[in-house]
């Protein structure tokens, strides 16, 4: 390649590939060996071709995702390592090659061997499978495509990280930060918000997880089990590959502006120095600050339950400011490569302190209006709420309005509720009880608003409880929650029930032993001096014939529900039978490899006449809780 105008220099490409051959040859070796064993194990532990492919997809993708992330970082670091010392940076920069040529030649030299290694490894996979009598060419092709697209993304991100710094040791840290920063920061902000904001929800789902690519891909890209073996989440894979290409283009733009004198600098791109400084300050304030606080105070649970007090705010604020001090001046030291940074650098730190104080005060005094925010009815697409773990989704406007009003009432009663919560003791055995209320508004613009509260149900809150349980026990809501009963999706049905024993002395001798076993859940059936637990299992067809029509009839007439509040009303003990009907529903989520089992349970009551008849026809005796124990 003797042209001096080209944007690609073959000689530089070849030189870079040959210089770092140990890296990609290790990748090639491990990937090929791994694929060989994956195929071999898949064949040994399977009964049919399809199952073998399932296992093959699963192992290759899971392994490949993590492996790709690590090796793309390594190859990007090595192929761009010339930028990190003044000697090599000068040597490369004085070559008669344009910046675009330098960038493309060295970058391609990093990623091309990886993609060729993927191809080779997948050929190994296909041939190994063929040797064992399985045609896995299509599976290998899919795995090759998926893995190569992972490579494109991971390498693009790693290259971008390489361009931001002039120090090779910093690249892995930036890479890790980019991969996990968003979820970590979001999680920490949620923890912080939970301190101050009444109803702040620490849901496990993250709004900004898409900014943490490895996390997002691990959670979103899966393989499908039989019968349609394959890889799901192609949209994610392709989207991230496109992002990888965009990051490469961005890296080129940064590289064109890069100054070779920044070799060995922590931040190579001058405009990013303040960004680095303030990100490190706030990052430390959030992470180290919370860590310091947890070491000093260790009262997270108390703050979540009852809200934080002034001393909490002061302690947390001091912890965060100390941590911000560490982050801010560490950044200054790294940027200036000097420990003497404490003169004339305080303005920025004071700004950081002010922002932290504003953040804490803003949350405590709800200056941002988060605590009191209830979305407008017009903006809401649907609402789902959960009480005692029973989740109900609502789409009709009237019920949504009712939930909004209940939610507003709960917010308005914050201080009294927290005061009651502090005084309440379970042992008091009153009619009052606590319940967790979670609500999620899905807005028309796709945004989700999550809130959760622990509520003391008495007086005023009793009305809220009645509203919520009323909605939960509505026939249409019950039908929505128990939809699989109306289809053919159940796998089997268990019925547990308790009957009194005629001769209590017969059970007394085993009672101690039985109670002990029951405690450790070793026995499905309990034996007590006066009662005996019994169990019956129905197949899907038996349940559909003998039980389900009766339950559906009771649901339609509002006589049975899958939800009962045992704590809420002690009078229920005279209405509810000590009997539990459990349907096991196999569920395969779209992106999941495995089946999950969902249980739908009903407790018949004196009102569920049709169900009671069906149970009796199955030979089940029904006794209320009161009849058995009171």
């Amino acid at each position, binding site marked *: 390649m003797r042209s*001096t105008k080209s944007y690609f220099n073959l*000689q530089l490409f070849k030189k870079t590939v040959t210089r770092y051959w140990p890296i990609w040859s290790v990748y090639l070796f491990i990937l090929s060996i791994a694929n060989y064993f994956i195929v071999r194990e898949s064949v040994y532990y399977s009964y049919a071709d399809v199952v073998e492919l399932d296992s093959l997809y699963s192992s290759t993708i899971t392994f490949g995702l993590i492996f790709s992330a690590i090796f793309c970082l390594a190859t990007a670091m090595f192929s761009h390592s010339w930028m990190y010392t*003044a*000697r090599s940076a000068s040597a490369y*920069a*004085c*070559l*008669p090659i344009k*910046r675009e040529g330098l960038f493309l030649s060295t970058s391609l030299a990093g990623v091309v061997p990886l993609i060729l290694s993927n191809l080779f490894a997948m050929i190994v996979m296909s041939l190994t499978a063929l040797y064992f009598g399985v045609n896995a060419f299509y599976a290998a092709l899919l795995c090759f495509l998926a893995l190569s697209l992972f490579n494109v993304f991971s390498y693009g991100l790693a290259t971008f990280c390489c361009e931001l710094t002039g120090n090779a040791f910093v690249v892995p840290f930036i890479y890790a930060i980019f991969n996990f920063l968003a979820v970590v920061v979001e999680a920490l902000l949620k923890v912080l918000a939970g301190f101050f904001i009444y109803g702040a929800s620490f849901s496990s789902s993250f709004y900004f997880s898409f900014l943490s690519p490895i996390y997002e891909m691990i959670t979103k890209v899966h393989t499908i089990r039989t019968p349609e073996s394959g890889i799901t989440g192609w949209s994610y894979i392709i989207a991230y590959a496109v992002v990888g290409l965009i990051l490469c283009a961005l890296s080129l733009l940064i590289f064109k502006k890069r100054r070779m*004198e920044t070799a060995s600098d922590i931040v190579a791109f001058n405009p990013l120095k303040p960004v680095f400084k303030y990100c490190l300050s706030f990052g430390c304030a959030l992470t180290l600050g919370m860590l310091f606080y947890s070491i000093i105070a260790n009262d997270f649970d108390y703050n979540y339950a009852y809200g934080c007090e002034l001393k909490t705010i002061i302690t947390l604020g001091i912890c965060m400011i100390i941590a911000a001090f560490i982050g801010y001046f560490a950044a200054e030291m790294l940027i200036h490569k000097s420990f003497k940074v404490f003169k004339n650098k305080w303005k920025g730190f004071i700004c950081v302190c002010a922002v932290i104080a504003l953040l804490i005060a803003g949350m405590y005094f709800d200056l941002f209006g988060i605590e009191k925010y209830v979305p407008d009815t017009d903006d809401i697409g649907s609402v789902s709420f959960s009480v005692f773990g029973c989740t109900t989704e609502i789409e009709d406007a009237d019920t949504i309005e009712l939930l909004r009003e209940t939610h507003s009432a709960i917010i308005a009663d914050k201080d009294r509720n927290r005061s009651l919560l502090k005084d309440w003791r379970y042992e008091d055995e009153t009619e009052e009880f606590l319940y967790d209320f979670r609500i999620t508004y899905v807005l028309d613009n796709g945004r989700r608003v999550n809130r959760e509260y622990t509520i003391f149900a008495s007086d005023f809150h009793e009305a809220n409880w009645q509203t919520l349980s009323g909605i939960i026990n509505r026939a249409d809501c019950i039908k929505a929650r128990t939809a699989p009963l109306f289809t053919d999706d159940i796998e089997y049905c268990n019925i547990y029930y308790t009957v009194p024993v005629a001769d209590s002395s017969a059970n007394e001798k085993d009672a101690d032993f039985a109670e002990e076993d029951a405690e450790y859940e070793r026995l499905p059936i309990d034996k007590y001096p006066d009662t005996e637990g019994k169990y019956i299992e129905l197949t899907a067809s038996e349940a559909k014939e003998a039980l389900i029509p009766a339950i559906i009839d009771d649901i339609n007439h509002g006589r049975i529900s899958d939800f009962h509040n045992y704590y809420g009303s002690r009078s229920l003990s005279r209405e509810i039978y000590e009997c539990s009907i459990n349907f096991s529903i196999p569920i395969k989520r779209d992106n999941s490899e495995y089946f999950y089992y969902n249980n739908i349970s009903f407790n018949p009551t004196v009102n569920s006449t049709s169900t009671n008849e069906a149970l009796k026809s199955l030979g089940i005796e029904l006794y209320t809780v009161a009849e058995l124990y009171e």
Partner: protein
Amino acid sequence: MIKAEKLVKQFDKFRALDEFNINIPQGCVYGLVGPNGAGKSTFLRHAAGVYKQDSGTIEVFGEKVFENPKIKNKIAYIPDDLFFFLQASILDMRNFYRNIYTNFSMERYEKLKDVFRLDEKAPIRKFSKGMQKQAAFWLALCMRPEIMLLDEPVDGLDPVMRRQIWSLILSDVSENGTTVLVSSHNLRELEDVCDHVGIMHKGKMLLERSLSDIQGNTVKLQIVPKDDVLPQNITILHESSTGRMKTLIVRGNPHDVSEAANAVDPVYYELIPLTLEEIFIYELGGVDYAVNEIIL
């Protein structure tokens, strides 16, 4: 040829080049001298297209050099701190450069084997510093450059090899009109090879002239004056005395200084040409350079 005007380069708060001006004619051997931190290496990196200036201009063959592969193809740059690929031998580096530099001459490479008697297949990193320098010169000379930028080029070389390398460079200069810009602390050596000299201090060019001009414009006058009357109308850069004998460093051509000395009818006087080292020291002494007291 190489021309810089008001060139500024700042590293954080340190101004390495401060409105630096230089004009290097084609075919000359230009010695860039100055104390540590004067900005010599920084300027060489600008001339090689490694650094981009903050302001001002630098042109080589009338064109910008930064991001200009056509110009860079004509330049061989040997920095003070050499770089070779890890594990690379001279053969590896030759193969790399011959596909990068369009003028790379294999014929010359073969000829120079007799001058640089190095093991072509051994990893360069195993060579001594002097041998690595030899390897760098070997490869650089094979590029048939029109401009050679040499930063402290002969550090670590033995006297015989220094002479051989300078001989090769100077034959390139005379035969091909190669321009050489060399920075060095070894003023004695520069004196032998340079025809132009620039003295840098704190990022600025203090003095830029041909060597003959410099040496013809500053003289050392040793004089025993009558009645302590020193010559008038001359610029005295430095004055010292030993007994009645005064030693004056005077700016001006020898003829004028001689006339001025005769005019005061001294007991004795003598004009002695200055070495480049002396000129360097006295010029820098004039700008409060710290070595002033040490040498006197």
